[in-house]
């Protein structure tokens, strides 16, 4: 199997940081706030691999740093340390060593992101079609007719009514906004997709359809995905492998079935038990 992403020792500290930050935070210390300098150790020493067509789950309670991982990889926030290598065909990109223009190029051409809050992923002042057009224009497609066709095809694929392609997303329901966001993220057929709590806050039937859509996309396009969620149902349905995070550290990794059926870490055991 082809490796798509290799993340090693990723860390992000908010605040000045001090020599005691690492030892005095984490699951053992039961906090991510350094008592010496007040810095927040959002993530520390996160490593994982991702392969083509694979869906990796990142789970943990809120504040465990799971969103920070994908935000760092999508260049929304610069990490404090660590490295990540993106394998794109024959070329390798060391993500955090690239300059801003190259990072933007990768973000626009090769990555996709779906945020929990459609506010972050969509511009509510331009039409649904315009949102998709923006992403296509960012990837240097300059033909109006072609952009229009692609936007319509993508919205049809994500089951957004074509009669609403020129409406503003702020007039859409939450589930529909999320589907527009997915269509936008898929516009450039990226080999790597980040999904940050995509179904949180949606009702169950809408959740089910969006999860179906994500699975279909994975089957069709062989897109590798990193799915961040605290919902064990989503983890069970979508992912093959998962990592469990607490206070910024990875406390358990393995096959999803294994983690859910036979959790090793006390926290994972509590998490699984509480969900059932």
């Amino acid at each position, binding site marked *: 199997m082809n490796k798509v992403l290799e993340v090693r020792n990723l860390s992000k500290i908010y605040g000045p940081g001090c020599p005691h930050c690492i030892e005095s935070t984490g699951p053992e210390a039961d906090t991510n706030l350094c008592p010496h300098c007040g810095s927040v150790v959002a993530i520390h020493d996160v490593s994982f691999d991702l392969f083509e067509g694979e869906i990796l789950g990142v789970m943990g309670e809120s504040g465990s740093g799971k969103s920070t991982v994908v935000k760092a990889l999508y260049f929304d926030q610069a990490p404090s340390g660590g490295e990540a290598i993106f394998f794109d065909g024959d070329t390798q990109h060391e993500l955090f060593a690239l300059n*801003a*223009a190259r990072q*933007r190029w990768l973000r626009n051409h090769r990555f996709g992101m779906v945020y929990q809050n459609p506010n972050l992923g969509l*511009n509510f002042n*331009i*039409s649904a*079609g*315009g949102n998709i*057009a*923006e992403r296509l*224009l*960012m990837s240097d497609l*300059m*033909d*109006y*007719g*072609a*952009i*229009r066709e692609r936007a319509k095809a993508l919205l049809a694929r994500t089951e957004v009514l074509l009669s609403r392609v*020129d409406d503003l997303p702020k007039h859409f329901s939450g589930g529909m906004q999320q589907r527009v966001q997915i269509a936008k993220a898929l516009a450039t057929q990226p080999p790597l997709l980040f999904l940050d709590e995509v179904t949180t806050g949606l009702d169950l039937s809408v959740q089910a359809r969006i999860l179906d859509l994500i699975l279909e996309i994975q089957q069709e396009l062989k897109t590798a995905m990193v799915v961040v969620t605290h919902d064990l149902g989503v983890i069970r349905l979508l992912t093959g492998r998962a990592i469990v995070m607490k206070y910024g550290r990875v406390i358990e990794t393995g096959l999803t079935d294994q983690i859910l059926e036979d959790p090793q870490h006390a926290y994972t055991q509590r998490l699984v038990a509480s969900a059932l």
Partner: protein
Amino acid sequence: MNAMSHTTGGNAYNFGFLDEYAKKEIRRAVLKAIAIPGYQVPYASREMPMGRGFGTGGLQLTLALIGPGEVVKVIDQGSDDSVNAVNLRQFIEMTCPGVSTTTRTAEASLIQSRHRIPERPLTPTQILVLQVPYPDPLVVVEPSEDKRKIMHGEADYSRLLVKLYEDIVQFDEITISHRYPTRINGHYVIDPSPIPRWDVPRLDHAAALTLFGAGREKKIYAVPPHTRAEPLAFSDVPFRVEDFRDAAGRRRACARCGCTDSFLDEFSSDAGEKVYQCSDTDWCDEKLLRKESLRGEAA
């Protein structure tokens, strides 16, 4: 530098109103703007004895470039006689002794203009100074100047194109009438000041230097001679200029000189009818003069 040598007779003001240090700074900004076509060079816009927004950016450029023997033309929307043009011309006459003014485009060596480029093609010895209210084309899509600077640096103009896309979706064509975003020399996109679309193609590979001065926003930028200036457009929806056709599809002509290839202004006559006339008054006068001399020869 001896600033005193430039003072004008008994007048306490320096030649060109600005002190020599201010002129030097503006000239340096101009040189940088020419060296990086389309880049907005910040400068310390001086307080002028008129409100910001009345062309102080253009005026400062003019006063920094002007020297004795210069022939200056000042126009406002194509006309030499409207308020802004008359006042700026008088100010230049008052503060720059030895400088002559003209209304003839062909005779001018320095042309300061508000919102029009003269119809007559400019020559390599002429400089066009445009007054700019809003220098940054990205201001409509990004409120943060910090982010706009990054976007300019990376030539990230996709959000401007999204605006064009939305226009075509809603109205079947691009509806920007003036301030049309234009890419200079393949990188920076400029706001070419509120010139009509008609004038945008004439920035492309122009023989004359075009300078843009925004006094309130404190920016100077330039389109050097023989430089690419491409209005943003889609590959299958090309940029087009105003066509001035009537309901029957005929090109309207100027009611005064009969010209059919100039930018027209629309007026209401006393009878309440729409009348069209050349926006560039010098162009119109010249056409009229030629027509009359032809008639004279025929008679």
